[in-house]
């Protein structure tokens, strides 16, 4: 699968910003297995871009194509299918079920299209240092712990593209390194591309193409 961005311009964006951007109003092709790092200050449209690519919003001009097909023409059922098997995401606002436990949150996603067995949840939780939080309601976990739960959730399915919207904002250096390592391994296992949006470039990058938004 391949994702192309063809002259995307959000409806709200300032035209001055468009001229300076390496993404808006440009042709950007994200190939399988590629690591693309989108760097953008706050308010310049990182979350919007991720939302456009994931199909959550359509308030833009231009085209985003999955394997040549304009995403605006895809049906809701088709999108559901793609989100189960081709595209995974870590939201900036995490979007967990607050009253469910960490394990339940992950399982709700995992059972859609299992890529790993249930035991893998415990492995990843151990690796990210949140084993003890798995059976707690998410609303009782800290934001950093919730971010790690969201990361594990995103890795429970098959995907060709992993979208990340500021996934480490509340993690310390050590946890950030652990999380990134886990993500790289999972993407490599799948031959998947990573589209990673953040405020500033990360030091832990491995061969990413960096684009300024």
């Amino acid at each position, binding site marked *: 699968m391949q994702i192309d961005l063809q002259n995307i311009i959000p409806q709200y964006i300032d035209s001055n910003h468009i001229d300076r951007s390496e993404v808006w109003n440009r042709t950007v092709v994200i190939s399988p297995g590629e690591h693309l790092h989108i760097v953008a200050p706050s308010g310049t449209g990182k979350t919007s871009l991720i939302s456009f690519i994931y199909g959550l919003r359509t308030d833009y001009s231009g085209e985003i194509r999955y394997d040549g097909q304009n995403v605006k023409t895809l049906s809701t059922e088709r999108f*559901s299918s793609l*989100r189960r098997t081709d595209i995974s995401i870590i939201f900036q606002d995490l*979007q967990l079920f607050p009253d469910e436990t960490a394990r339940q949150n992950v399982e709700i*996603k995992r*059972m859609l*299209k299992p890529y790993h067995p249930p035991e893998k949840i415990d492995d990843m939780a151990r690796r990210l240092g949140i084993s003890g939080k798995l059976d707690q309601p998410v609303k009782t976990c800290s934001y950093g712990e919730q971010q790690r739960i969201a990361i594990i959730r995103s890795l429970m399915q098959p995907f060709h593209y992993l979208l990340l919207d500021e996934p480490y904002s509340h993690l310390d250096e050590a946890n950030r390194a652990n999380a990134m390592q886990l993500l790289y391994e999972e993407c490599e296992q799948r031959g998947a591309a990573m589209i990673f949006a953040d405020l500033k470039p990360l030091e832990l990058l491995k061969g990413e193409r960096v684009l300024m938004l």
Partner: protein
Amino acid sequence: MELNYKKIQPLILSGKNNLSRGIGYVGLFVGILILLVALQTFVNIRALLQENNPRKQGYDYISVSRTITNENMGRDNSFSAKDLQLLRAAPGVQEISPLYSNKFRAEASAGSVMPFSTDLFLESIDNSFIDSVPPAFSWQPGQTDVPLIFSSDFLEIYNVFAPAQGLPQVSAKTISSINIMLTCSGPLGTQHYRAGIVAFSDRINSILVPRSFLNWNNLHLDGDTLTRIERVYIRTKDANNPQLISYLDRGNYHLNKDKVKFSRIKGILQNIVAALGIFGVLVIALALMLFSFYVRLMIARSRDNLRLLLVLGYSPAWLAKSVARTWLPVYGIIIVLALLGTQFLHLLFRNLPFVNQGEIPWVVHWSVAVTALVLLLITTLLNAALVRKELQRLV
């Protein structure tokens, strides 16, 4: 791996609106029960009030004559050719048949079998109007045996007054085996016949003879086959046709009111039951409306969770189907309870004193069960469509 809806069900059905849900269930049960009971009652009424008339063929037969008043008494109140023509063209009339009567004198006696003799009136009518015409009901000139079709009402009247007159009561079978000595006389001569009852009529209250017998004896004993027509039978699809009844009332005709009243009663009963059925449908519609509010409320309350499930990749169609399916067992139970309730009430009705149990089977009519199944299908489909529509709004 099959997706397990039970694991995400708590995210959706978290509402505690049990009271409105319960009211909706009760309303649906009551509505369905009313509808099914109305349908079964309609079937029962039709079975109980059906005439066992093999020649009815879906028609009603009404006897029509002129109403005799003080004003027209003593005058010619017979039907003219024009009267017959107008009657034939009246609203709701399929066909008419006049009753022709004897102009000669007819005396009947039972000989030594029974000390009984009387003058008779004999009539004839188109065979297609008679409810029971056996093959023996025919006559050729020269034949001394004459077949009669006797009115069941007349036999009943006889058996009522016979004991007071010292006469034996007789059954239909016995009277059919009696040879009746029939003496027909007129200005031109006398004929003696042996008559026998070959059938009884519930429809025509007369003593019928074949037309050929009447014509021959009218001609050879009285010199004329022409007779005045005092009574006509009408064949109609619906004796309760208001236009027909109104036409006959305006024409100052006298009708055999029992027949019409009977049809009217049947019509009224069936209309009442139909109205009950419509009421049942309204109650069902109201209950379904209440359910739709409940579904909308439930989805609105779970909007955030549902939206997140859709964002995570849950199929809107699968979610809609799974949510709708949660109500399927409840609907099924309601329908089964309503069917059982109908069966129970039907058995109670069957045990009423005026009901001839032989006419009504103990189990409810198949159309009631089919209606119940159709209602289950409709409620399920409506529910599923509503859930799908509400979920589409979230996408």
